[in-house]
C-alpha cells in the first residue's frame, strides 16, 4: 500500500472528488425545485461512488469497489428514480419549502464549513494529509446535510438532506486508510436510507396525510400529551 501524500496524483484526485461532494452539498442547499434537488443528490452519489472507487484503487482495497458500486446503483439511480416517481405520483408541489431563506442557509453553510476546518485541521497535524483534508470535507458534508434537514419543511427534502448527510459518512469511511467493515457499514447505512425513503412512501400511500409536510405529523404527536 503506497502512502498517499500531498501533491501527488492520488491525493489530488481524492481531494478533487471530495471537493466536488462538498460543492454538490452546497448546490443541494441552493436548489429551489424538487426535481433539481433530486438530480443534484444523484450526482453527489455518483461522485461518492467515484471517490470510493478511486480509494479502492489507490488503497488496493477491492472491497471498496463494492461500496462504490452500491452507491452508484442504489443512490445514484434507484433512489432518485423512486423519488421522482414519488413526486409525480403524489403530485407534490415542485417547489422546495424552506424554513430559512436560501441565502441565509448558504451563509450558515459557509460558517459550518469554516467550523469543520477549524475543528479538524489543527487536530490532525501529524495525520496523513489525505484523511485530514477528507475528514474536513466529510464533516462539512455531514453538517450541511443536517443543515438541509433543519431548514426544509417538506419530508422529501428532509429525506434528501438525510441522505446527503449519509454521503458524508461514506466519504469519511472510504477515505480513511484501511478501515475494516466499510462495506458492511455502507450496506447498513443504505438499509437505513432505503428505510427512510420507504417509510416516506409508506406514509403517503397510506393516504392519511394530505401533504408530506411534517408539520402535520408534529400536530398529531402533540395532541397526545
Amino acid at each position, binding site marked *: 500500500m503506497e502512502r498517499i501524500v500531498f501533491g501527488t496524483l492520488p491525493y489530488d484526485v481524492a481531494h478533487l472528488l471530495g471537493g466536488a461532494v462538498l460543492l454538490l452539498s452546497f448546490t443541494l442547499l441552493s436548489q429551489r425545485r424538487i426535481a433539481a434537488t433530486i438530480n443534484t443528490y444523484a450526482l453527489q452519489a455518483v461522485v461518492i461512488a467515484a471517490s470510493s472507487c478511486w480509494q479502492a484503487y489507490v488503497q488496493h482495497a477491492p472491497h471498496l469497489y463494492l461500496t462504490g458500486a452500491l452507491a452508484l446503483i442504489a443512490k445514484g439511480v434507484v433512489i432518485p428514480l423512486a423519488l421522482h416517481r414519488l413526486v409525480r405520483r403524489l403530485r407534490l408541489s415542485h417547489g422546495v419549502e424552506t424554513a430559512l431563506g436560501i441565502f441565509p442557509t448558504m451563509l450558515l453553510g459557509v460558517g459550518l464549513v469554516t467550523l469543520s476546518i477549524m475543528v479538524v485541521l489543527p487536530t490532525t497535524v501529524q495525520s496523513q494529509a489525505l484523511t485530514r483534508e477528507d475528514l474536513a470535507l466529510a464533516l462539512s458534508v455531514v453538517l450541511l446535510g443536517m443543515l438541509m434537514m433543519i431548514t426544509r419543511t417538506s419530508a422529501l427534502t428532509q429525506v434528501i438532506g438525510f441522505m446527503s448527510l449519509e454521503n458524508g459518512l461514506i466519504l469519511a469511511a472510504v477515505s480513511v486508510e484501511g478501515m475494516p467493515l466499510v462495506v458492511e457499514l455502507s450496506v*447498513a*447505512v443504505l438499509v437505513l436510507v432505503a428505510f*427512510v425513503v420507504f417509510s416516506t412512501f409508506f406514509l403517503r400511500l397510506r393516504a392519511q396525510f394530505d401533504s408530506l409536510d411534517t408539520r402535520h405529523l408534529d400536530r398529531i404527536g402533540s395532541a397526545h400529551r
Partner: protein
Amino acid sequence: MADWFEPASATALAPLLGAVLLALIRSPRLGSLIAIAASGLSLAFAARLPWQSGHGVFILVDPLAAHVAILTAFVGFTSALYSRRYIAVEIAAGRLDGPRARQYHALFMSFLGFMLLALLSNNLGVTWVALEAATISAVLVVGLTRTESAIAASWKFFILCGVGIALALFGTVVLYLAALPALGTGYAAMTWTELARAAPNCRGTLLNLAFVFLLVGYGTKAGLAPLHGWMPDAHAEGPTPVSAVLSGSVLNVALVVILRLRGIMASNAQAIDPGPPIMALGLLSVLFAAFSLWGRRDVKRFFAFSSIEQSGLAAFAIGLGGASATFAALLHMTVHTLAKSAVFQCVGSAAQRRGAQSFQALSGLIASDRALGLTLAAGIVALAGLPPFGLFASEILILSNTMNTHPWLVLPVSIGLLVGGWKLIARLIDLCLGPATETSATSSHAPVMGALSLAPAWVHLALAAVLGVAMPMTFAAWLAAAAAVVP
C-alpha cells in the same frame, strides 16, 4: 472470526433465530410461545456469561457487558412472558390481527437480539450496525398499531434516531482514525478492548472530535436531553412490552457505549475531560424531565419522561467518574430497568382494563384492581427513589459522590430529583388511590390481573428491593468488577 460461534454469542443469536422462526410461523399463540422460548434460551445463555469472560475480535464478554446483557435478556424474557397475555388481549379487543401479532413477536425478538449483539460486540462497527437494526425493529414495532399517532411517533423516532445513529457512525470513523497511529489499520482500531488498552497513545485531538459525535449519536439513543425528542412519543404509542424494553434496555446499551467511551477519553492525556459534557447532558436531562413530568396527561408518556430523568442521572454518574460513581451508575441503570419495566407492565394492563391510557381514565386502580394497583404503587415508589428499592441506594451513592467531587452540583441534581419525585408521588396517588374512574370502556377483553400475570412485575420489584437493602456481597463484587472495566 471464529468467535462468532462462541457460546456467548448464542445469547444474541437465540432471539434472532427466534425472530426468523417467528417470521415463518402463522399462529399467534404458538408465536408467543416461541418468543418466550427464544428469550428464555437467551436468558439461559446470558446467565452463563459471567463464567465466560474473555474477548475476541467481535465478541466481548467482560463483567460490564455481561451484566447489562443479563439484565437485558432478563427484561426481554419477562416482557415476552408479559407479551403473551398482552397480545392476546389486544387481539381480542381487535386492535391487532393475527399477522400483526406475528410481526410483533418477530420484531420484538429481533429487537432484543440486536440489542444483545450490540452489547456483546467488541467491535464498534458491529455495535453500530446492531443498534441500527434494533432501532429499525423498534420503529416498526412502535408503528405496528397503524394508528395515526403511532405512525407519527414511529416516524419521529426513526428520523431522530436515524440522524443520531448517522452521527454516531461518523464518530466511529473518526475514532478509528484517532486510533490508527497506535493500533495501525485493521480490526484492532475498531475494537473496544484494544482501544481501551491503547487509548493513551491515540491522537487526543481526534478523540475529541469522535467523542462529540459519539456522544450526540448515542446520547440520542440514551434519551438524554435535548436529544430525547423521540422517547416520549415512542413510549406512548408503542405496545407496552416494547415500551418496557425501550425504557430499560436501549438506554442501557447506549449508556454502556458512553461509559466505555468515557473510559477511552479519560485515559488519554491530550483529550478533553469527558466528564463535564456527559454530566451536563445528564443534569440537563434530569432537570428537563423532572419539570416535564408535571405537564403530562398520558401515563406512558409520563413514564417515558421518568426514564429520561433516570437515564440522565445515570449519565451524570458516568460523567462523575471514579469507581464508586460508575458503580452507582450501573446500579441505577439496573434497578431502573427492573422497576420501569414492572411499571410499564402494570400500566399496560391497566390501560387495557380501562381502554385508555390517560391519567384521567386510569385512577383509583387499587379500588378496582387491587393487586395491580398495589404493584404499580410499589413500582412508582421504587422509581421515586424510596426504600427499600435500589434506586434509593444508587441515588445516595450518586449524591454522595457528587458531594465529594462537585458539591455545587448537588443542588441542581437534588432539585431535579425532588421535582420529579414529587410528581411521581402525585401520580402514584392519582393512579392508585381514590375512587375508581367509571369508564364505559372497561373492556371484558382484559381480565383481572391475576397473580400469575403480575408475577414478572413482582419478581422485578423484589429484585429491585433486594438490590436496595440487602445486596449480596457477591453481587456487589460483580457490579464493582463491571464498574472497574472502565478506568
